[in-house]
């Protein structure tokens, strides 16, 4: 009988190995070759709402893929030389699309303005003409003729005798916030320094890991080129931060990851006096993770990096199965181990699966992926533990564990009445303290508080903002229209409302496309206004100064309205700005971006947004933060649901009294760790919540194992639980030292949670017989 069962087991083991190998290949194919991994944070956003998704694409286009590099030098000639070298370096790069300016982009722009003055009448002149203040309009022109500071010339007077383009041009440079030309480059003189700006566009998302790696190489090379020619480079853009943070994250993951892996190997090897248990542990977790990723990558078209990281972490719960196996193996031979541990570890698995099942119904893809990965991973690890571990041929029962005595004594200590009583009291005390403390938690869902931006990059960004006069108080409005002309018309309407806000002191200024060119309707109005002036007395006065023939000829050639065409701005100094202010989507949708500066309160703008269906207040980080809030709120609900599910399940298995004893330690530990993180001054976010699931998942295993043991007969359980606690704390708890708040938050919960649940779990030990 036994040999038949053995053969059956062997066959199953081989089958499982084969399946694991298959999973491994699926992972290689899907995730490594086909790269079905998504690292774009924005793509986590719920796609249910089409409008949001569409806006999000627009947001991405604006914010994520843009990069501003500022070259800085005190010497003007040197900075131009540096800029030429940097430009060469940029042209060699294949991650940027560079927008080239013409040799004399301001001249190119001037020619454009001169060619169609009705399209470029300043608001100020429009108002003067509309109010029939022809005399004032004329005097402004005359003043130009006599001013020693004007650049009046014969050529100018021939081309544009009313200096309309001049007026407009100075308004434009006003919009360009003091930009000036440094040969073929656009730049700024600020605070005794010269700055040359490079407006770059990435050819992929700033969250693409490959691109981030390339970016770091490119920027190092660019900085080197600038440095060699005596200049400095300042970066501002999502990519600068995302690349640096990813690099920092990887560096940390390497130090924390390798550090904790090494510590686990050393400690476990010391306890078991062998390296093999650590290797077994790695094998089980690896098969679990590989199977989970294989299955998930077959079900979902793309796996998000976020789900992979969190999901794989949760598979870590499976350490319990391994340690339980190994610990039991210290007391009985391998053949008997499975029989003895199958019940508690199955129960552990079922409770965990129950917990994560709730996430599957969250309706949020990321959470579903996390749930699927952890469920499949745990099941695979469970099967591996049951099938493969006995057939490995490693038998601890035949070895003499020196450290075993330590656990015998530890067991004696924790099963003492006094200890169990203390644990119970503490569990209730922690519960009360935590509930009180947690009630005061303010959740922080701001995406910026999840990651730590390097200080030097923040300083660079600040300087860029100062030079470009774009403060952090900047908000952006987005206006949608079906045609460019419609967009311009709608923008004209909107900006007249914004002018009112400026008049009321509720807004400092704005930049909008319609400041660059008028809609066809406005052009027609401008034309009529100028014709009305042409019929006035004031015009005759001016004509006598500049020559009636010249002026009449000019007025006669004023052309009809023209459609706005982006390409005519190519190579002019306005091109970068237009690219910032107008977005044409593939579906023939046009979006105008209105950059608001010095917005006093959002309410006035929000009222505008609410009243206009085509108008949106754009806030890329805000959009993501509100998504994080959504995920966090859902996760809290789901974690609570998971805890309740598990409690009900335990009541069903154990009856209410014992179920409570099994349930209380992880609950108390989880809540205490949350309030500890809160008391440590951490802002609580989604990552804390996700870590609570881990504490529950592992913690409940401890109490389930303990509840299976009668007093004084559970040294192997103590051994298993201790090993599990140590390895979990080492694997995740060390994350609490991370520079990245999100990672640190996760680590803090696991660190406190695991230690507390380890201390409290003995209260579940059976005290009846």
């Amino acid at each position, binding site marked *: 009988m036994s040999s038949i069962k053995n053969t059956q087991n062997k066959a199953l083991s081989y089958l499982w190995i084969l399946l694991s190998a298959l999973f491994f290949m699926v992972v290689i194919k899907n995730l490594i070759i086909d790269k079905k991994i998504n690292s774009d944070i924005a793509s986590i956003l719920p796609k249910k709402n089409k409008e949001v998704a569409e806006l999000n694409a627009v947001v991405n286009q604006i914010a994520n893929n843009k990069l501003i590099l500022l070259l800085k030098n005190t010497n003007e000639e040197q900075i131009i030389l540096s800029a030429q070298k940097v430009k060469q370096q940029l042209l060699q790069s294949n991650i940027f699309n560079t927008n080239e300016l013409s040799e*004399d982009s*301001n*001249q190119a722009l001037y020619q454009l303005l001169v060619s169609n003055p009705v399209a470029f009448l300043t608001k100020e002149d429009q108002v003067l003409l509309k109010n029939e203040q022809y005399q*004032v309009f004329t*005097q*402004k022109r*005359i*003043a130009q*003729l*006599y*001013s*020693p*500071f*004007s*650049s*009046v*010339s*014969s*050529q100018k*007077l*021939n081309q544009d005798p009313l200096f309309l383009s001049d007026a407009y*041009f*100075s308004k434009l*440079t*006003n919009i360009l*916030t*003091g*930009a*000036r*030309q440094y*040969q073929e480059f656009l730049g700024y003189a600020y605070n005794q320094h010269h700055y040359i700006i490079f407006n770059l566009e990435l050819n992929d998302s700033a969250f693409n890991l490959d691109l981030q790696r390339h970016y770091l190489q490119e920027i190092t090379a660019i900085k080197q080129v600038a440095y060699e020619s005596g200049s400095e480079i300042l970066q501002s853009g999502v990519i600068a931060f995302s690349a640096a943070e990813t690099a920092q994250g990887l560096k940390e993951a390497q130090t924390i990851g390798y550090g904790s892996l090494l510590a686990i190997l050393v400690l476990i090897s010391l306890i078991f006096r062998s390296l093999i248990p650590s290797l077994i542990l790695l094998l089980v977790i690896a098969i679990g993770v590989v199977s989970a990723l294989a299955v998930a990558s077959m079900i979902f078209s793309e796996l998000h990096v976020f789900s992979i990281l969190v999901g794989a972490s949760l598979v870590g719960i499976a350490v319990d199965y391994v340690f339980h196996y190994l610990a039991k193996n210290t007391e009985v031979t391998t053949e008997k181990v499975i029989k003895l541990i199958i019940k508690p570890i199955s129960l552990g698995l079922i409770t965990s699966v129950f917990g994560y099942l709730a996430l599957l119904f969250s309706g949020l893809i990321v959470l579903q992926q996390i749930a699927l990965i952890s469920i499949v991973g745990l099941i695979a690890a469970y099967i591996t533990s049951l099938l493969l571990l006995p057939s490995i041929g490693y038998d601890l029962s035949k070895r003499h564990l020196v450290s075993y005595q330590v656990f015998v004594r530890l067991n004696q200590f924790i099963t003492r009445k006094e200890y169990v009583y203390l644990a119970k009291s503490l569990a209730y005390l922690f519960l009360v303290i935590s509930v009180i403390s947690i009630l005061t938690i303010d959740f922080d869902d701001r995406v910026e508080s999840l990651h730590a931006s390097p200080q030097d990059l923040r300083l660079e960004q600040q300087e860029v903002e100062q030079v470009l006069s774009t403060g952090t108080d900047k908000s952006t409005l987005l206006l949608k229209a079906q045609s460019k002309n419609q967009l311009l018309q709608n923008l004209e309407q909107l900006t007249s409302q914004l002018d009112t806000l400026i008049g009321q002191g509720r807004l400092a200024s704005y930049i909008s496309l319609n400041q660059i060119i008028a809609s066809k309707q406005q052009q027609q109005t401008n034309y009529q206004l100028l014709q009305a002036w042409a019929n006035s007395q004031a015009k005759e006065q001016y004509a006598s*100064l*500049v*020559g009636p023939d*010249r002026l009449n000829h000019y007025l006669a050639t004023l052309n009809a309205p023209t459609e706005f065409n982006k390409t005519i701005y190519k190579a002019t100094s306005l091109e970068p700005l237009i690219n910032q202010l107008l977005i044409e989507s593939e579906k023939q949708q046009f979006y105008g971006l209105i950059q608001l500066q010095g917005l006093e309160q959002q309410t006035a703008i929000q009222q505008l947004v609410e009243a206009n269906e085509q108008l949106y207040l754009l806030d890329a980080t805000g959009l993501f933060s509100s998504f994080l809030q959504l995920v966090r709120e859902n996760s809290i609900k789901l974690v609570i649901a998971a805890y309740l599910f598990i409690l009900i399940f335990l009541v069903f298995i154990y009856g209410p009294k014992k179920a409570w004893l099994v349930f209380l330690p992880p609950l108390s530990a989880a809540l205490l760790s949350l309030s500890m993180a809160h008391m440590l001054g951490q802002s609580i976010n989604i990552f804390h919540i996700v870590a609570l699931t881990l504490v529950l998942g592992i913690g409940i295993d401890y109490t389930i194992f303990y509840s299976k043991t009668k007093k004084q007969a559970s040294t192997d359980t103590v051994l298993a639980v201790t090993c599990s606690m140590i390895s979990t704390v080492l694997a995740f708890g060390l994350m609490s030292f991370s520079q990245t708040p999100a990672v640190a938050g996760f680590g803090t919960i696991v660190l406190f949670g695991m230690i507390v649940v380890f201390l409290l779990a003995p209260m579940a030990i059976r005290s009846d017989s």
Partner: protein
Amino acid sequence: MSLTILSVNSSYGSESNQLEVLANIEQDYKGYFVQKRKLKIIEKPFVSSGEFELNSKFLLWHIKSPYEVIYNISAETIEETIDGKIKTQELKNNPEIAFFSQIFTSVLKMDISLLQENFHITQSNMETEWSLLLVPKKKPLNKVFSEIKVQGDNKINLVITRSLSGDTNNIHLSYEFN
């Protein structure tokens, strides 16, 4: 009112000859001006006159004839008063006006370092009167002016700008206490 003679290097042409120009010309002064702007395409010159005042803080250019316009240029702003209405503009937002007014004041103040940065300078007539010929070195000046001529003794008496298109602007300055 002493004259200080300063030696500076000129980079004009290929040879690097020694050039002596006036420095420390009076920094605070006021007087009268007559400006004749002659555009090539218009026969009659635009003649204006009025008062000006220059000191370390501002340049006041008060045109009294033929129309009253007042310009007050400080380091940060330019104020234009037409018909009693004052319009103030930040110079940082008007780089062109900022640049031309900066050049104009640097000529009136004989700000050597700023002039040398922007012009090749040649000097002649080292008696009681001197004159400087300024030829713009770089953009945007060299796209507008072919040369600027300055004459004076211990004050500036005449500034003539000549544009590439052949327009000229003669500014005669005279002083109350001379």
